[in-house]
């Protein structure tokens, strides 16, 4: 078989003129055996007009007209052509640098990407104080939720006196819809191990514990494999790289309680106690695991660390916004076309994330809100789409960075129901230790359940707000302190929806099943009996060729009848 040596990829999402011209030019030049023209559906690069990409060089042509075909074919055949253009997705990959690139089961792959060089450099050339100073200078802040400056945290743990200290990696990742940490652990486990060892050297610890949820068996297997490989090469264990520094890492499995992601509850869980938060202070940096000074960081936080040393703290501090440095990994989910895992510099706008990277709203529907920060966060409306995201900006609009889940909602989502969903989650996951969280959130949920079933009273608006503020002020840990956020933020931006439920007993989005009913239009109904035959609860009555009627008492609002009706006679009101 003759071998094709160059490929010309044409974006045909805007039409096939250029594609046809190129195909013609290839056969006219008699290059059909060595040059292939192939259609693709978009490249994800920022460019005007028709875009063509040439392989193997990977260069682009932009704004291509059919007249350019001969020139492009000749260039491609001679193995050149095109120039780079910027991609929509920014090219800053830090935490995900190796994820999807290296073989996570191969320590050689990792070392080939300068793996363990940052650790070796720190141990050989830097004092622990230097290491802490570099992390501080980078501006790195915790990626697990609160955004606390990582260098400062290491400094506190370093300064705490103690014969024994611990480095803990929080890999509990409990936010619904979040999978950033899992992807890092499964795709680049050594990056986390290396950073934990660097932290151990910085704070004076010789032992690390990774607290990983048991629902992540592949992440655990890859971590175990990575630990064994690193020990075999002398990159973990005793006398690392002959420097006299020793560091061991073990894995502790969590059983899937959301509150065990909170650092003090996590520490309790490792100790075999109930997964309940402890009163702070003392902070873990002073008295953590087994009451010894401990540093707790999130997986993604650790995954950034080696790059700070390989490229310099200034490099890291040069990415992002004034107060939020570096990049953030987000799990993009919900009503969006391109569901996936993305990494963008801090300061990227929500609009860029949703439309350029996420490809817009599924089914061409209207964007309504984006939820950030999981059960602790809030919903951000369309009017704030140009918000550059960082820790401060998200907090200023009543949400938070959280761990990086982004859930996109469209016109069919009811914001009261969304708030109810998150509250349902936090009530389920509350450990019950403190009253504001245990009882208060339950009361919030009860009110929301009444509102979404049309039984809400006007005074609930004030009661929700007041109780929400009290729960935030009085709860023991971050779970309770943030649980009312989804309610308060949706009340702030979508009060009209709350009012419609309470005053008019209507769900404007048509999502709250208790507030809608299916009705048959007697004008349009032909009495074909199709709806009645398909109704799963047999609640539609009517004789053949006579108007049918739905028994609203028994109707379960599944919508099957509306989907089946061939005459558009059934509507949801």
């Amino acid at each position, binding site marked *: *078989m003759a071998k*094709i040596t160059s490929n010309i990829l044409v974006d045909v999402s805007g039409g096939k003129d250029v594609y046809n011209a190129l195909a013609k030019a290839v056969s006219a030049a008699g290059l059909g055996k060595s040059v292939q023209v192939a259609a693709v559906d978009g490249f994800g690069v920022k460019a005007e007009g028709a875009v063509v990409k040439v392989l193997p060089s990977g260069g682009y042509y932009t704004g291509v007209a059919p007249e350019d075909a001969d020139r492009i074919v000749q260039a491609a055949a001679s193995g050149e052509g095109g120039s780079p253009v910027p991609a929509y997705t920014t090219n800053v990959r830090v935490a995900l640098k190796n994820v999807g690139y290296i073989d996570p089961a191969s320590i050689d792959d990792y070392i080939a990407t300068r793996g363990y060089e940052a650790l070796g450099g720190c141990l050989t050339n830097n004092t622990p104080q230097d290491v802490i100073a570099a992390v501080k200078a980078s501006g790195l802040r915790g990626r697990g939720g609160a955004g606390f400056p990582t260098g400062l945290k290491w400094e506190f743990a370093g300064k705490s006196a103690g014969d024994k200290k611990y480095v803990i990696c929080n890999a509990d990742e409990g936010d619904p819809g979040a999978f950033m940490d899992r992807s890092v652990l*499964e795709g680049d486990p050594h990056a986390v191990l290396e950073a934990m060892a660097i932290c151990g050297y910085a704070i004076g610890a010789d032992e690390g514990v990774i607290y990983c949820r048991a629902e992540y068996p592949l992440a655990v297997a890859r971590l175990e494999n990575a630990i064994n490989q690193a020990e075999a090469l002398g990159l973990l264990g005793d006398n690392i790289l*002959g420097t006299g520094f020793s560091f061991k890492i073990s894995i502790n499995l969590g059983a899937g309680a959301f509150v065990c992601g909170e650092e003090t509850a996590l520490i309790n869980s490792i100790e075999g106690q109930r997964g309940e938060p402890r009163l702070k202070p003392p902070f873990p940096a002073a008295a953590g695991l087994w009451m010894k000074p401990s540093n707790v960081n999130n997986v993604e936080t650790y995954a950034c660390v080696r790059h700070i040393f390989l490229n310099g703290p200034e490099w890291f501090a040069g990415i992002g916004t004034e107060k939020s440095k570096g990049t953030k990994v987000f799990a993009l989910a919900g009503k969006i076309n391109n569901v996936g895992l993305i990494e963008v510099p801090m300061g990227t706008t929500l609009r860029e994330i949703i439309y350029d990277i996420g490809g817009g709203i599924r089914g061409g529907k209207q964007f309504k809100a984006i939820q950030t920060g999981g059960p602790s966060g809030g919903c951000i409306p369309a009017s704030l789409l140009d918000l550059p995201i960082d820790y401060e900006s998200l907090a200023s609009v009543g949400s938070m960075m959280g761990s990086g889940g982004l859930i996109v909602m469209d016109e069919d989502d009811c914001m009261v129901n969304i708030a109810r969903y998150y509250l349902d989650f936090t009530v389920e996951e509350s450990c019950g230790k403190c009253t504001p969280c245990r009882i208060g959130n339950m009361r919030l949920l009860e009110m929301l359940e009444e509102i979404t079933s049309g039984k809400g009273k006007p005074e609930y608006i004030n009661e929700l707000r007041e109780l929400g503020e009290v729960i935030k002020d009085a709860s023991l840990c971050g779970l309770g302190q943030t649980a009312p956020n989804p309610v308060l933020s949706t009340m702030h931006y979508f009060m009209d929806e709350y009012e419609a439920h309470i005053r008019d007993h209507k769900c404007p989005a048509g999502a709250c099943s208790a507030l809608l009913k299916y009705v048959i239009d007697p004008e349009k109904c032909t009495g074909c009996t199709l709806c009645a035959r398909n109704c799963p609860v047999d609640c539609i009555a009517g004789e053949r060729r006579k108007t049918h009627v739905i028994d609203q008492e028994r109707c379960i609002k599944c919508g099957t009848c509306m989907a089946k009706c061939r005459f558009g006679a059934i509507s949801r009101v």
Partner: protein
Amino acid sequence: MAKLGSLDELKKYAAARSVGRADKTVLAVGAATCGIAAGAKDTIKALEDAIKANGVSGAEVVETGCLGFCYAEPLVEVRAPGAVPVRYAGVDAALARRIIKEHIIGGAVVEGAILSKEVPR
């Protein structure tokens, strides 16, 4: 395996290794939990079987982490020496066999299956 005794030894060890192979085309399959759930294990087997069945010597299949495009799993990235990578989306066993036949052996990309969204490293 001997332990590395110093930073210099680590650097020498690193210099002798590379992720890509100068003499081989690598077929990297996204095999994180997400990819596996979407069928990456079947994809890997189909690619390996096709490589064997066609007597291809210059290609090998490796597993890698999540490439980030959940909506397009299972994903295969073809990395030929000296060429920019080409990503294929929704690679089931049939498409895997076509990739080996048409792309690896014939040099022609498999039309209609390319995910060329740029995520530079």
